[in-house]
């Protein structure tokens, strides 16, 4: 032990001596550490402190109270149950989609792909909204078509449906990558050696994809556990969900300690599963790509199976389309369920009364995402290319907000920044800071990925030719990171526009967000206005993606393809 400690001290002191030679770098590192501690660690720390201290004394009283409460315990079980079921079902559908699109030559592949992407770029509670509009008390299908009154969509069934639809695309994206990295020649080889089609799938494809599937399940579990919008709309009081309970404790009962305690209980499983995924499962991936990628002969899937898979994809795609058509329709229908005739009244409402939320959301997203992107790139650069003590801690801390449910962060921000030294609640700044520190991991991930592809000798060459480290970063590294920067930007912009779980704690009369507006419209039963808001929100996101893509292809077209592989 002592030896390890001594070694660590020696290594760190060497590294400290090394970075003091570069004062600007040192300054950057210190500033980043300070902000990570203040805006990520400190709020979490506050959540813990508030739940285990009462009246200035350490006590487990609040936690005990929360745990012994039947209703909260039920919320915890329900959350876990939802997490488990959603992740398994979602990963299953995701795999089905990914396998069909990666391994068969069915038609309409592009459309399937695009439709599967839509839930990722829209607010995560759109599914819940549409389900109420279709299957609720005045639901189009239940009430108008089938004439069923009081169909019970609230609770377990409805929520599971909404969450599977919301989160399976995440599994699809991950698993498609996994399946595409498994060379189809392996399957062809097994088939050639005399395996039956089913055997090839069971003995070759599936085992190779297992680490990817496990990883997708765990990621979905964390996301479902953290989900706030769907349960708020659909769970109902008979099927309590932890994230909603924590929110209601704080906004309904003004009970900060209990809210914090619930947040803490939510935090523990999310964070453990997240790190299980990141540090264990994600490392077990097989790497099978060797040499040139070969096209699959698509022979390993029999025509019958192929068309069954195609049918399933059509079915799922139809459900997603139905959801979005419902929202679109709802935005133009006078009173959903009663009078479905055409009107612009909801859009007029959004553009007059509700327009401040639109501009607020845009201002906040447009301000926070580039900052998050740049900060992410800088951290990625430091982590991949520089040596300094606490490097791992920096990476760990900045990735932490991926693992922490938004609800916990939101509560942490309220607890942390509503009293001196930093009073920020109700301001523009707190929303910006929250978004920045929630979305830097996106930038870091894409930055790290691209930097690992850039041969370090490219930077060494610049230094060798006489450039100092700042010049090298500005002239060589940064331009090379630009594609990653923009793709990170798209992602964090989408997230910032659709965020709800943390933001709902931080909005105020002065600064409101569209997602929060949509929620309150749904709560007060104005589904038309909610739909109109949603349509505009998704429209803005699509427009932003198109613009960023356009900028990329116009100015950085030459970056694509082989450029970075040299």
């Amino acid at each position, binding site marked *: 032990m002592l030896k390890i400690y001594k070694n660590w001290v020696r290594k760190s002191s060497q590294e400290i001596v090394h970075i003091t030679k570069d004062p600007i770098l040192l300054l950057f590192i210190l500033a980043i550490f300070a902000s990570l501690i203040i805006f990520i660690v400190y709020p979490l720390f506050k959540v813990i402190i508030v739940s285990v201290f009462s009246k200035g004394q350490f006590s487990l009283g609040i936690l005990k109270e929360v745990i012994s409460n039947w209703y909260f315990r039920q919320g915890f079980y329900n959350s876990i149950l939802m997490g488990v079921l959603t992740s398994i079902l979602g990963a299953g559908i995701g795999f089905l989609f990914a396998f069909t699109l990666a391994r068969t030559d069915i038609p309409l592949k592009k459309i399937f792909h695009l439709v599967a992407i839509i839930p990722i770029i829209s607010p995560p509670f759109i599914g819940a909204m549409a389900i109420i509009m279709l299957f609720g008390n005045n639901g189009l299908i239940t009430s108008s078509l089938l004439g069923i009154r009081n169909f019970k969509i609230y609770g377990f069934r409805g929520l599971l449906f909404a969450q599977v639809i919301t989160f399976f695309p995440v599994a699809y994206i991950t698993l498609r990558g996994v399946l595409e990295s498994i060379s189809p020649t392996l399957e062809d080889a097994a088939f050639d050696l005399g395996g039956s089609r089913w055997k090839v799938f069971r003995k070759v494809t599936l085992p190779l994809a297992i680490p990817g599937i496990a990883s997708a399940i765990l990621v979905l579990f964390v996301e479902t556990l953290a989900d706030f919008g769907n349960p708020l709309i659909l769970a109902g009081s008979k099927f309590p969900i932890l994230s909603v309970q924590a929110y209601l404790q704080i906004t309904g009962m003004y009970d900060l300690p209990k809210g914090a305690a619930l947040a803490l209980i939510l935090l523990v499983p999310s964070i453990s599963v997240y790190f299980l995924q990141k540090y264990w499962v994600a490392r077990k991936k097989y790497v099978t790509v060797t040499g040139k990628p070969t096209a699959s002969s698509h022979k390993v899937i029999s025509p019958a199976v192929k068309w069954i898979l195609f049918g399933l994809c059509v079915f799922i795609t139809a459900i997603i389309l139905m959801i979005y058509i419902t929202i679109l329709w709802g935005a133009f229908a006078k009173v959903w369920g009663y009078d479905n005739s055409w009107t612009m009244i909801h859009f007029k409402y959004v553009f007059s009364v509700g327009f401040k939320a639109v501009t607020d959301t845009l201002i906040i997203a447009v301000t926070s995402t580039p900052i998050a992107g740049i900060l992410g790139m800088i951290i990625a650069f430091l982590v991949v290319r520089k040596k300094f003590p606490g490097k791992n801690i920096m990476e760990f801390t900045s990735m932490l907000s991926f693992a922490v449910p938004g609800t916990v962060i939101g509560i942490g921000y309220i607890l942390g920044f509503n009293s001196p030294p930093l009073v920020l609640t109700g301001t523009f700044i707190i929303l910006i800071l929250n978004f920045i520190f929630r979305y830097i991991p996106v930038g870091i991930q894409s930055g790290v990925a691209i930097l690992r592809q850039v041969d370090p*000798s*490219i930077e060494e*060459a610049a230094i*060798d030719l006489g450039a100092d480290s700042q010049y090298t970063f500005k002239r060589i590294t940064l331009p090379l990171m630009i594609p990653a920067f923009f793709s990170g930007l798209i992602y964090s912009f989408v997230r910032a526009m659709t965020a709800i779980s943390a933001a709902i704690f931080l909005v105020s009369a002065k600064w409101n967000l569209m997602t929060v507006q949509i929620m309150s419209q749904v709560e007060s039963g104005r589904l038309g206005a909610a739909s109109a808001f949603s349509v505009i929100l998704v429209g803005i996101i699509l427009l932003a993606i198109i613009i960023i893509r356009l900028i990329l292809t116009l100015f950085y077209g030459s970056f694509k*393809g082989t450029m970075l592989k040299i």
Partner: protein
Amino acid sequence: MSVKLVNISKIFQDHENIQKKFIAVDHVNLEIKEGEMVTLLGPSGCGKTTTLRIISGFETPSSGEVWISGEMVNNIPPNKRDTSMVFQSYAIFPHLSVAQNIGFGLELKGWKTKDIKSEVKKIMKIMDFSELYDRRPDQLSGGQQQRVALARAIINKPSVLLFDEPLSNLDAKLRIQMRIEIRRIQKAFGITSIYVTHDQEEAMTVSDRIVVMNGGKIMQAAIPFKIYSYPANAFVADFIGRVNFISAKIKAKNEKGCVVNFGSGQKEIHPECGEFNAGDKVILIVRPESIKMTCCKEDKISPMKGKVDKVVYLGPTIEYEIEVDGIDRKINAVIYNPIEEGFFHEGDLVNIDFNSAAAHILPAND
């Protein structure tokens, strides 16, 4: 002299385990003259690349001094050192054009754009690839990228040019072409150069002097001819080309050379006999191409007799493996021009001899 390494060592320490350390470079002393092209040659992990990176400044030596042009440069960072490196991966900046890549060093020196342009054009003309001026790196072949990397290094007129296995990513044919090209350009500019490679043929063609390294130590530093013909030790002999190691014993010493016992016979070896005395156990180093084979009846002159064990026909040459009485290792022979020298078949009995000057004597290691 232009570059001097004094007692350079580099130890990589495993931070998790203090016992684990790796000595990459072990007390290396080397002087490189102005305008000389020296190759560091050795198997992977021998310390050659680390030595090069110490000279460029990317690695700090654990001990010892690096001198460039009469100045001790240990504390000068790589961007302030007057060295330019040609990287194994070429390290072409992918977002800059060929001209921008080549002019990068001049840009850093604050040259005017116009002057950079004309200088880049000049060097591209000398190196004969002017047509690539406006190309982007992803439109270049491996050989073209190599030229860009070389031009980018040379344009700065560094006092030392460093090559880190520059040809290892090219195909065999291009490699042969480029090594001649590199040598031509190095001579034309007269830049002191240090070249790292594990390819002995490449080392032979490009260098004034070869430094063979193993286990972080210099095994031998000499002109290519000496390295091949008079290897300083068994490692160098074995690493460079193919070789027969023949265990032998010094029988007598005379003014011409010495008489050596081996196999079933003996032979006079001259002119070199080294510091050995009668009775010393030694190893004779004889290259396969120096072996002479004759048929078939016994003669008195040949020191070794044996039986052909294996024949490999390669067209211009024939390679034989011969089992020799009294020698445990098979003797390898390469016969050029077999039409004149004659063919042998497996099982043939042969007499084996070599020119007295073709053998090199090393002490036996036991």
